[in-house]
Every structure is written in C-alpha cells, then in structure tokens.
C-alpha cells in the first residue's frame, strides 16, 4: 500500500501512531513492510489457505461475534440437502457438469427458496424453471441455534476445519507461530470496542481464484463483525484515477450503468423477460425495473416509450464472455476488425503481451488515444518480434490512428476514486494543438455516425438515429459540456426535466430519465455535488461535503451494521449510525444504508414483496434477504465457499485436494498461449509475481516519459533473494534473463533479502519479483513483464493470473526476442500432458472439459456458443 498508494497510506500511519497494529502479508518485503509491525512473507497464490486458516481459528477458538453473525449474516440459513462440499468430493463441489465443464449451482441454494445474487453472474439464475426465483425470502428456512449440520455456519465450520496452522505452513511457507501471532492480533482487535480492516489490491484479484480470495476475507470480516462499522471493512486499493467510475458506469461488456446486466441473447429477449429474469422479488434489486427504464429514457429520450419497450430492443445482446482476453484471442484469430484503445496500453499492461500484439496485427484499423504513442500504438515497428525479424512492418495491414489526448487539467470532468467518491476536476487551460478529451472524441465521432446513418431505413441503424446526442458545444474546439453529461447521468423528471435528488425518485413508467441510477443525486438540486470542496477543517471527520459518494452520498456501505439489532451503537467508541426513537428515523454521522424510517423492530409480514421484505435488522439491503453472505448460494461460478486451488502454473501439488486448480478457471489452449506443467516443471522451477513500484505508474504511459520519475527508477529490474542469486550465479546490479514458454526478458538484478526463499513441504521455494512498468518505447525502456504471463483467468470476472506463475531465471543477457505470439511455444508445451497424464490440473471428471469454449475456436462461433 505504501508502494502504490502512499498518500492513502498516510491514514495507516495515522492509525499506527494511535496504536494500531499494522500487519503486512506479501511475498516481498516492501516499503509497506518496512513500517509494519508484522511482515509475513507468503507464497504467491496461497492466500486462501492462509485466510481459510483464519476462519478456522476464529470459529474453533470462538472468537466470532455471535450477535452480529446471527443477525446480520446468513449463518443460520439451511442449505439444500443435495449440497456436497469439497471435503466430500476431493476439491469439487456438488453440481459439476462434466459436459459443460462448469457448475450447476442448483444444489448450493438455500432450502426452500432460490435467491439471485446482488452482483456477479445473475444470468446463472435466469435459466428455467424460475417460478420461485427470488421469491420472498420469508420462505427461507433458518436454524438460529446454528447447530443444524446443514446450516451455513456448520458448513463453513466443516469446510475450513482442515485449514490448520500446519496446512498454512504446507501451503504458504509460513511458520505456525507467525500465523498464530497474526490470528491473535486480528481477533484481539475485533469485537464491540475495536474493528480491523483489510486492504488489498491486484495482488488478490489477479489469480484464477481471485474473487474467492476476497470472499474469504469477507467471511473473516463478517465472523468478526468488521463490516459496516467504522475502522472495519475490506478496502480495494484501485490503481487508476477513475477505475471505480469505469466499473460503475461500466466500459465493461457485461454491464450497463449501475450494475444492470447486459441483455443476454438466450433469454433476455424482450424488456418483460429481461426484467423478469433480472429483478429480484425481495431486497433492493426488486427496484430493478425503475433503473433500466430510466436508463433507456436517458439514452433514447422521447423515442423511448412504453409502446416500444422504451427501445429496449436497441440494446445489443451478449452471448457469453466478451471480456478483454476473449476479445483479443478472437482478434488474433481475425474475428475483430476495428479496435479503440483509449488511455490504456495493453501491449505492456495486459498478460501475454505478444498475443496482444498478434491481435493488433490482425486488425483492419486501430485507434489509440494517449499523451504520446505508446507500445500499443507502436506495435508495428518496434515490438520485440519485429526487432527479431519474425514480423515485418511491411506485412502488417493494420491502419493505425494516434489521437493526442487532453490532460485532466485541460477538461472538466469527474473521477470516482477507490472509496466510491466522485470528485470534479475543473479545466485549467486549453488543450494544445489537436489534443482533445475523450468526451470530445466520442461526441464528435457520434455526431458523424449519426450523420452517416441519418437516412438509413435499416432497422439495425435506428439505435443511432434515435440516440439522444445533443450536448452544448463550448468554445472553438466545440468541447461538449461535461456538466450536461453529468446532469444526464444524475437524471431528471419528465417532461419537466427537473433534476432528481435520489434514486428513490426513479419510476418505471418512463416519467424519469437517469443515466446511472447509483449516481442519481450527484447533481442534486441542479448543483454539481461532485465539485463540492468544503475544507476538511470546516466539517466533521466523515466529510460529507467533500465531493459526492454513491449511493446517496453514503460514505460507508452497510453502515446499518454499526448499530446492534435494536438500533443502538455497539459501543460509544464505534458509533456511526443509529436509530433515533424520538425522530423515529435512522441518524448518525453518515447517511444510513437502510430505509431511513424503517424501525429496527420491523419484520416483513407474510407475503411481503420488494423492499418490504427487508427487515429492520437487515444491513445488506442489496442482498435478496438483506444478510451478509458467509456462504454464497448463487452468483459465483466456482463454488459457494472459497477453496484453496493452486495457480495454473505452480511449483506445488495442491496440498489440500486432488483437484489442483480452480476447476471453473478460464483457459486458452492455443499455440500462441502455451502453458507450463501444472506443477514441478523442471524447466520453470521458480515462482514469479509481478507488481508496481512507487516511482512508476502501471504500464508506464504516464510515467516512463517523465525524467523526474525515470531518474528514480531508471531501468527494468527483477528482485531475487541472495539464496536464489547464489543458486543461479546472479550478481546485484548485473543482468538476468527470465523466461517462460511464452517469452524471455532481460532485466537488471537487485539481489536483496527483501525476497526470501520459503520452505514449503520440505522443499525450498524461490520467488522472483518482477515489476511490470517497462517496455520498448518511452524515455525509460526495458523488457515487459507481461511478455512472460499467460491468458488464464478467474471464471467469475475473467481477470488474468499474473500474480503467481512459474519461470526460469539465469544470469546474463540471453533473451531471444522470439515470442509465442509470433512463433508459437518457445519450448515443448506441457511434456507428458498430451495424453492428459500426471501431473494434471484436474480430476478426471473435470478433465473432460472441452478447451473449446475459450481458445482456438474463439471468435464468432465461440462467442455465440452459449446462446
């Protein structure tokens, strides 16, 4: 955190000053470790074993917060009789479908009722039959004593029983006493008077079980009562100025603004079905119709009306996974013709960079927008495979447009930071030359397309013709008015066009328009709330008057949980929001995350529907039953409970189950994306993990051109322990060549005790640290870490695994510039794997999974497979 979010880290130091214990768990000893009380070096990719052992410790030592767990989580819910755990199936849950190669989550459901998830793969629950789907949760069966062997609490307890300190040593290479020190510190600091927080970044997400890493932390925090209370929570430290915003207003394939799912080709065939399949009968998602209708009104204005389903059929339909890696694979196979790259640099920042560039070579046209031509814009002339002569510019047909972008100081707009806070940045100066904002680019591109399609009779072109696309143009450069766009996002009533002040004002009858329901209120009363800058010293510590946080300017989610079931603060030290019996409403430092006038004693009556099903003690209002999920009955593709699986390319056999890797993981079996052996590949004996350093930013587009930063970290380097250096004859400051079957890179070596070998299952494990900032253009260049990584991903969110994979490292500058993306595997792929023999990643029933879904047969056939 001190490495990549130093200013956010000032609050950790503030806490430390006030006596907090800082625990840092990381394969490396970083700038964070340097000021932490405890540093725990962990084998990259083994976090679930560690966190699972915490769950086990908390339950077996009775450190859990009973009143919180019983009332605020689904611990008491009874689970379907058919459910079988990984304990019973050697690493698989019940419901595995060998044909489809995926889980059918039916057997994971609550007894008596099928709930749909608040987020995640809601489509899993759109399949027939859906009669009881999302039915009023009152039908759910509970065991408040938490003793029924089929209740969530007992299932969780059994599932993690084998996650002992010894297993932690076996899987993570962490000594039991060190683990116990951490466990004790965490439990001692949780309860009525104290709370503990978890912070993570992509070190948790970039794994084939990334989502489950975070789920495990959620279980720990729910058991300890650390969610929805000040000083608690699980904080994602996000790496870009508006990466949160680009998820809320998603430039992501599977969502519409406000986490509304994209229409699925197979069933969301019209608005009625779309709503039926995606709304929930209980919980907040019962409000679903209001949000989609208001969105359609915002997009298609007066053309959207009840008679034409509010132009619902203008929306494109997805038919499976259209995420980044799937798209690039399809690109490499020639199915994608045109590509917009806006302020991103996949040729450096995305996994298996040479496959990324192969995709770019197969395009008809490419548009790149950035400060200066990045590696992505320059792929056709200075990429390694071009230098190597495997590819010639004269043979690359791609037409490339590079548009210079405007800086944030040259345009108005809002960023949403990692804590969901929208902050407005004002234009300071005019952009130079032909530099323009993306707002300008997209708006004027849209105007041109509307012109091109103006007279088209073709029904496919109606969406463009009917698109509401009128924004005020400012100045010579005709910059569209960003605040007008924000006004559209915030929404207004119709026809009088009064700005809305909260998403509770939205309607499903077309009388409101709103571009993103969770952002509704960001321009309350027509005032740009995101531009509020009331000095911190002129308001309390929650600082509600600085910027605007979604939803409803709420600074802490689930904050209903900061009060006990009766609505009284758990303790004075930790009071945040509470029920005021006089005023008959919830009040406190923050905007309460519940229905403000719903008393704690309210219980839903029989047959209650919609948000009336939320009782007065339900803090997690987005969930169908208002509870925090220790156990995940739906929404995840790889199981209801986090389970330790090894990375795709590991050095170890899974110490816990016969199933080596996440059975539901996404693989791309293709010549340009070969894999190492499942474990113990003698050619690639070391663990590698990639990361950033303070002095540079992600793929370097905003840092490798700046001399003030380059002088601080001038060259690509790798970090190894003195032990590994001794083993491989590496010298500090000298050169090393790091290779995988996909590529080889050269880098300077820093030999340092900040990395250390771990003893796991009696073997010494060496880890190689690889920063990923550098590549072949800019004022500071070097080989890119992502030349090494592979396409392989978490099934839930299609995020790749770059935080744990196997490599070889040797001394000297020996890297060939050959790349799997250009010439295929650099070594024999998975020897002894052709026949599916040992070592195998999967149990026999999983092995039958056809790699087809993702991989060679990508592109159109594959894209529409699920339809």
């Amino acid at each position, binding site marked *: 955190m001190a490495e990549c979010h130093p200013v956010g880290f000032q609050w950790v130091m503030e806490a430390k000053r006030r006596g907090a214990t800082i625990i840092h768990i990381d394969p490396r000893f970083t700038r964070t470790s340097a000021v932490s*009380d405890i540093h725990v070096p962990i084998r990259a990719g083994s976090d679930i074993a560690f966190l699972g052992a915490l769950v086990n410790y908390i339950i077996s030592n009775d450190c859990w917060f009973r009143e919180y767990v019983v009332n605020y989580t689904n611990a008491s819910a009874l689970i379907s009789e058919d459910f079988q755990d990984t304990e019973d199936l050697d690493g698989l849950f019940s419901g595995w479908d060998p044909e489809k190669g995926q889980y059918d989550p039916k057997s994971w459901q609550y007894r008596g009722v099928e709930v749909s998830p608040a987020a995640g793969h809601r489509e899993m629950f759109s399949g027939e039959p859906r009669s009881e789907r999302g039915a009023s949760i009152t039908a759910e069966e509970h065991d408040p004593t938490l003793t029924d062997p089929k209740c969530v609490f007992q299932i969780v307890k059994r599932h993690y029983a084998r996650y002992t300190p010894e297993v932690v040593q076996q899987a993570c290479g962490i000594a039991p006493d060190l683990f116990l020190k951490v466990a004790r510190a965490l439990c001692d600091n949780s309860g009525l008077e104290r709370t503990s927080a978890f912070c993570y970044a992509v070190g948790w997400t970039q794994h084939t079980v990334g989502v489950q890493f975070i789920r495990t932390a959620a279980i720990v925090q729910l058991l300890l009562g650390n969610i929805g209370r000040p000083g608690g929570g699980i904080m994602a430290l996000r790496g870009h100025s508006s990466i949160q915003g680009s998820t809320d207003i998603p430039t992501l394939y599977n969502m519409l603004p406000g986490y509304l799912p994209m229409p699925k080709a197979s069933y969301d065939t019209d608005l009625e079905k779309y709503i039926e399949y995606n709304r929930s009968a209980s919980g907040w998602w019962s409000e679903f119709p209001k949000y989609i209708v208001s969105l359609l009104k915002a997009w298609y204005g007066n053309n959207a009306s009840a008679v034409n389903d509010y132009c619902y059929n203008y929306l494109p339909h997805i038919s499976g996974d259209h995420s980044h890696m799937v798209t690039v694979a399809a690109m490499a196979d020639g199915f994608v013709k045109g590509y917009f790259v806006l302020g991103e640099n996949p040729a450096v920042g995305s996994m298996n960079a040479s496959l990324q560039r192969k995709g770019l070579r197969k395009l008809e046209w490419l548009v790149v927008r950035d400060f200066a031509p990045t590696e992505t814009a320059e792929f056709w002339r200075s990429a390694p495979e071009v230098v190597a002569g495997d590819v010639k510019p004269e043979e690359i047909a791609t037409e490339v447009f590079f548009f210079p972008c405007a800086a944030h100081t040259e345009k108005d707009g809002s960023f949403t930071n990692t804590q969901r806070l929208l902050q407005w940045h004002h234009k300071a100066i005019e952009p130079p030359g032909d530099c323009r904002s993306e707002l300008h680019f997209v708006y004027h591109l849209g105007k041109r397309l509307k012109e091109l399609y103006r007279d088209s009779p073709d029904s496919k072109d109606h969406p463009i013709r009917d698109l509401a696309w009128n924004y005020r143009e400012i100045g010579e450069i005709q910059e569209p008015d960003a605040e007008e766009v924000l006004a559209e996002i915030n929404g207004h009533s119709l026809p009088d066009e009064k700005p809305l002040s909260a998403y509770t004002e939205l309607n499903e009858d077309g009388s409101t328009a709103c571009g993103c329901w969770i952002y509704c209120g960001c321009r309350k009363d027509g005032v740009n709330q995101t531009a509020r800058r009331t000095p911190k010293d002129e308001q309390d510590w929650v600082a509600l008057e600085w910027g605007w946080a979604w939803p409803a300017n709420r600074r802490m989610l689930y904050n209903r949980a900061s009060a006990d079931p009766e609505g009284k603060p758990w303790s004075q030290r930790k009071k945040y929001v509470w029920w005021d019996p006089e005023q008959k409403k919830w009040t406190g430092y923050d905007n309460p995350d519940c229905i403000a006038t719903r008393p704690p004693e309210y219980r839903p009556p029989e047959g209650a529907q919609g948000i009336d099903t939320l009782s007065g003690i339900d803090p997690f209002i987005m969930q169908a039953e208002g509870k925090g999920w220790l156990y995940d009955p739906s929404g995840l593709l790889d199981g209801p409970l986090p389970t330790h699986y090894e990375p795709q390319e590991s050095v170890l056999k899974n110490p816990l189950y016969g199933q080596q890797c996440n059975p539901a993981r996404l693989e791309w079996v293709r010549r340009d994306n070969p894999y190492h052996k499942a474990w113990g590949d003698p050619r690639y004996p070391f663990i590698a993990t990639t990361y950033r350093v303070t002095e540079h930013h992600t793929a370097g587009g905003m840092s490798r051109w700046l001399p003030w930063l380059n002088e*601080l970290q*001038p060259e690509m380097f790798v970090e190894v322990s003195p032990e590994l250096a001794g083993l491989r004859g590496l010298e500090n400051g000298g050169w090393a060549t790091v290779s995988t079957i996909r590529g080889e890179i050269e880098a300077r070596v820093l030999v340092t005790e900040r990395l250390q070998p771990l003893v796991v299952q009696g073997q010494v494990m060496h880890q190689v640290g690889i920063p990923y900032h550098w590549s072949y253009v800019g004022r500071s260049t070097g080989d890119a870490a992502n030349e090494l990584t592979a396409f392989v991903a978490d099934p839930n969110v299609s995020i790749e695994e770059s935080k744990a994979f196997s490599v070889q490292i040797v001394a000297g500058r020996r890297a060939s510039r050959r790349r799997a993306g250009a010439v295929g595997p650099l070594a024999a792929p998975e020897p002894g794997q052709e026949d599916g023999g040992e070592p195998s990643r999967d149990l026999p029933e999983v092995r039958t999974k056809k790699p087809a879904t993702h991989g060679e047969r990508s592109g159109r056939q594959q894209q529409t497979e699920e339809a």
Partner: protein
Amino acid sequence: MEPHGFFTDTSVCIGCKACEVACKQWNQLPADGAYFSGRSYDNTMHLESTTWRHVAFLERSRQLSGQTTARPFSWLFLSDVCKHCNRAGCLEACPTGALVRTEFASVYLQPDVCNGCGYCVVACPFGVINRREDDGRAWKCTLCYDRQKVGLEPACAKTCPTDSIFFGPVGELQVRAQARLLELHRKGVHEARLYGMTELDQPGTEGLNAFFLLLDRPEAYNLPPEPRVPTKEVGRAWGMMGLAAAGMVAAAIAAVRAGGEK
C-alpha cells in the same frame, strides 16, 4: 522572525521519494539523468547541485526493535537535505555574499550573485552544496525561501504523505522531536536517536535547522558522526600564519643583512 526548519523523522518515512520530485517540481530543477546504481531503490545516491532532497535506502540484515519479520531484516529510509546549520561552513566561507542567512535563519544561495568560486563546496561538512560545472554556479536547498516569504511551507514538507518531513518553527520542532524520541524509546525502539538538534548534540555546527531522528548510526545514512564547521577553528590557523609571517620577515631581514656586509 522565528527560525524555521525541518524535523525529518525517519521512523515514519516510507521512502516514496515524493519529496525529491516535489522539490524538483517546485524549483524546476533538471533530472540527474537515468543511472541504475544497484543500491537498493536509491538511484540518485547523494545530494547534488540538481538534487536538493535525496532519499537514502538502507537494507540491513538486522531486525528493527518492535518489528516482527520472518528473518532478521529491516529497511530504513532517510530523506536527506541541506541542514541549514546554525554555524554554516558554506555561508561563512562564501567570499561574494552569495550565501546569506535569511530572516528565517535558513542559509540561502543567491543565484544572481554566486560566481562559482567553489569555496563553499569544500567548506560544507555534510557534502551538501556543489558547483554545477555546466552552469558554473553552486546550488543547494533554499528551504523554499520564496515560499516561506509568502507564508507557504516548503514543497517537500507539504507533499510528504506521512509527515516524515515536518516543517515549522525550530523551537516547536525540537519539542515535537523530543516527544517522538521518548515515545519510540517507550515502545522499545532503543536505536532511535536525534541527530544535530541542538548545539549540545552537535557542537561542531551549533545545531541544525534541519535535524533528524535516526534509527541507526549517522554514517549508515552517509551523515558525518561529528561534523565540525571549519570556520569555528580557523582562528588558530590565522595565528600560525602570523607566526610564519614573522618568521618570514626575520628571514628576509637576515638575508638582506647578509647582502649588506662587504
């Protein structure tokens, strides 16, 4: 005007180098060029005419008291800067008056006066100031004299995320430093010590306006253990010169006498 300065508390430094960049940004200093030094994450290595804040990175195969690690190891950082000594060698050696003591007690180098005689370079007991050959003049930290004049705090102190660099009236800084030292000692961090805070700590400079809290010996951070400002001792040298001059006169008289005889 009250003396103002820096208290740099290395025990909360996270080595982010924001101070180095903020200083270059505010003063619009050029970069030193890209050179990979192999010295942990320290690639600028020392204070220079173009680097007025420098962060040192110490890797030690020794535990830091109060810290739990899997093996004995610690990583220390220190943001070094001109010390703005109460008796400043550079200031007292400067023959042109380019170096002056400001109303804030800081030592300011007037770039419009300096003629690059280079005497300050050898007179600084900390190796801070240096002459930039292609510019011809000597340069060093100004303690953001321009900012102080309008009541702003120096760029490095402002940007420091963890308040490792703390700016203020030296009197208050000393109180703060003492409190911090006691707190650390109470927590069992016995290696914590103050460097150059008062004349008692450092008679050779009569105390620094930019002083430090260290977690290891000064020399481990490339700080002199007991620096002495040369001008404090120059008196006897002048005496010796007087003596020598007298001898010279005597020699000359003797010689001329020798010539006088027939």
